[in-house]
């Protein structure tokens, strides 16, 4: 069977499985199968949350970025898991006790005004739309490879399919479909990792393989990797921080508090049966997420080693990497490179015209290395490999069986589609229900509300898709910006709503607007106004990362600090919070008396 046929077959089978489960679940008692029904076992709920959470950014993009960044890539790993600790302790149990259905409803009640909930909706829309741009980048990568088309065609096709998927909507919210998606996704991620870990170290568990010696030698894999990346002018894998320690620190904070501020994650914990369950279900979700997140660093390191080894086999044997025939010849390149060249995400340019592929860090600051490269006639790096393709290409690079390659494609599509569709649904309900119906058009009919939701969804996907053609970064980087926006607006206001009895509506609103405002200002200064290329400002005169060397993706932390400071300053200048609201906050702190969720939708 050809690879293309196997891929279609496995992708088709997995989708048949999701649809089959959706139909089967519907045929039974509908209510029971919704999370809100409350009869779902916490472990199942954890898997479903995992599928919801792990998007194109986690599945397709993250390991590739870690592969490029080395040690510094840990900011994604710590950031996107550590937030669950905050969520479990600081938000989930209290929001559950609060008994509302959505984040804007919480804001409307706790901050006793429609205006507060409108501000929250706007912040959510900005964060979610940015999130979808990142997802569309990932969708484009997955579809272009899956169908063998260019990346932009992949995005157009992906836009259409995501839209249908979201309108169909039935896949979403049914816990057992998501459990199936989780299973496909995690198998697709771990099976190739197990194969590759076996090949390289003889240890089948990737988490242990990464800390093992190379098969048949007594050199640790990470030590070997450190040596070979330096042989090609890259910086040491296990010690390279992301720009600076300060930047890596605030980047991690931004992702952590952003996790605890994103609507599609928080909503999961609104609807568990009890406060007690809200605490534990965050734990189960993290168990299933951590399986992927602890495998990712192994995928990253091993993919890097396999890629470098493919291009320049001499690095593994301490032979001369600069020898004229050390690098593979372009016309003898492996098939996987040809397949990815079609998408335009892998490119070769023969700068020195020798017909061989020189893949190295041509910006290396090591003078000794640069001298050797010049002596060997190297005229710059000739191979560009988009970081977002690493996970999907990884099993091909390692020459694993076709069914494994196909399985990874199926996992990538599942991850990209499920999260993008979920976010679109969140956007559509925020616009049609929380904004239009509650605020501007109270007599909107149910039919009109549905229509408005679909139009909002279509607009969001077109905007995100077009911006996804020229994305502000790799999929995971763009998603990180979305986390920063949520971190700077929603998280502080939620925290203050629960932990401060005196925070009033004026303070909360001013804080949110200031936090997201300053974050957007910094991001747009670097990435263009609303991510439109060519509209960058200030960086020309002040330089990149002008605020203490902090990159825009990490700026959510600064935004959150501004949010807290402004909120408390404004609070002290405005009217006291009403007594009944203070009493309500007091009551939210105690688990007893938690009612079923109201705030019908």
């Amino acid at each position, binding site marked *: 069977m050809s690879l293309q046929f196997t891929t279609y077959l496995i992708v088709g089978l997995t989708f048949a499985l999701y649809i089959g489960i959706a139909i089967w679940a519907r045929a039974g008692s509908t209510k029971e199968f919704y999370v809100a029904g409350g009869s779902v076992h916490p472990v199942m709920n954890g898997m479903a949350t995992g599928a919801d959470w792990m998007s194109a950014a986690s599945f397709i993009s993250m390991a590739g970025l870690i592969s490029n960044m080395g040690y510094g890539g840990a900011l994604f790993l710590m950031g996107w898991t550590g937030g669950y600790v905050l969520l479990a302790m600081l938000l989930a149990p209290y929001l559950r006790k609060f008994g509302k259905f959505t984040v804007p409803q919480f804001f409307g009640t706790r901050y006793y005004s429609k205006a507060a909930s409108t501000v929250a909706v706007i912040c959510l829309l900005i964060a979610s739309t940015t999130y979808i741009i990142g997802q569309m980048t990932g969708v484009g990568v997955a579809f272009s490879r899956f169908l063998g088309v260019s990346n932009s065609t992949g995005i157009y096709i992906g836009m259409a399919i995501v839209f249908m998927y979201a309108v169909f909507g039935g896949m979403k919210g049914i816990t057992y479909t998501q459990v199936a998606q989780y299973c496909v996704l995690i198998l697709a991620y771990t099976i190739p990792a197990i194969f590759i870990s076996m090949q390289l170290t003889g240890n089948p568990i990737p988490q242990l393989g990464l*800390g093992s010696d190379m098969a048949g030698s007594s050199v640790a894999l990470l030590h070997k990797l450190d040596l070979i990346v330096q042989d090609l002018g890259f910086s040491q894998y296990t*010690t390279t921080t992301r720009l600076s320690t300060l930047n890596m620190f605030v980047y991690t904070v931004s992702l952590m508090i952003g996790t605890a501020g994103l609507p599609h994650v928080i909503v999961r914990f609104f609807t568990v049966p009890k406060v007690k369950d809200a605490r534990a279900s965050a*734990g189960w979700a993290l168990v299933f997420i951590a399986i992927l997140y602890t495998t990712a660093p192994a995928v990253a390191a091993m993919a890097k080693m396999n890629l470098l080894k493919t291009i320049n086999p001499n690095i593994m044997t301490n032979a001369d990497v600069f020898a004229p025939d050390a690098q593979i010849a372009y016309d003898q390149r492996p098939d996987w490179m040809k397949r990815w060249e079609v998408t335009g995400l892998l490119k070769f340019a023969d700068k020195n015209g020798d017909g061989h592929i020189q893949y190295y860090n041509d910006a290396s600051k090591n003078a000794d290395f640069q001298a050797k490269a010049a002596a060997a006639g190297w005229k710059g790096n000739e191979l560009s490999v988009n970081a977002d393709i690493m996970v999907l290409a990884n099993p091909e690079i390692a020459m694993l069986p076709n069914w494994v390659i196909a399985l990874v494609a199926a996992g990538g599509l599942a991850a990209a589609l499920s999260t993008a569709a979920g976010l679109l649904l969140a956007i559509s309900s925020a616009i049609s229900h929380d904004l239009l119906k509650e605020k501007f058009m109270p007599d909107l009919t149910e039919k009109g509300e549905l229509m408005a939701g679909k139009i909002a969804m279509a607009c969001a996907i077109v905007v995100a898709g077009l911006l996804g053609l020229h994305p502000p970064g790799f999929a995971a980087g763009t998603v990180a910006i979305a986390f920063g926006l949520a971190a700077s607006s929603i998280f502080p206001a939620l925290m203050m709503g629960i932990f401060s009895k005196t925070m009033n509506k004026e303070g909360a609103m001013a804080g949110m607007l200031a936090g997201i405002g300053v974050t957007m200002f910094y991001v747009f200064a670097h990435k263009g106004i609303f991510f439109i290329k060519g509209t960058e400002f200030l960086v020309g005169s002040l330089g990149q990362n002008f605020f203490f060397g902090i990159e825009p993706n990490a700026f959510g932390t600064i935004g959150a600090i501004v949010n807290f400071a402004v909120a408390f300053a404004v609070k002290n200048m405005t009217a006291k919070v009403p007594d009944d609201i203070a009493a309500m906050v*007091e009551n939210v*702190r105690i688990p007893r008396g938690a009612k079923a969720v109201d705030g019908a939708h």
Partner: protein
Amino acid sequence: MQHDSIGYWKATLGLIRTVLIIWFVVSYGFGILLAPELNNIHLGGYPLGFWFAQQGSEYIFVVLIFWYAWKMGKIDEKFDVHEN
């Protein structure tokens, strides 16, 4: 309120503080700030600082949440505010 709500809230915040300290020390402490020093120690083939950043923190986070949920259940019962 008939319960000792001040005592309950104090106990809750105490537990949150303990968890946050551990959470901070393993990730930001061992994984970022002290990573260069810890990298001189090895855990199998892993430099220790690198391990905390890319593996250890994630495991410890999982344990922390379950430990918090269990301790919190005890506190709920002690102050008689648990759900029936």
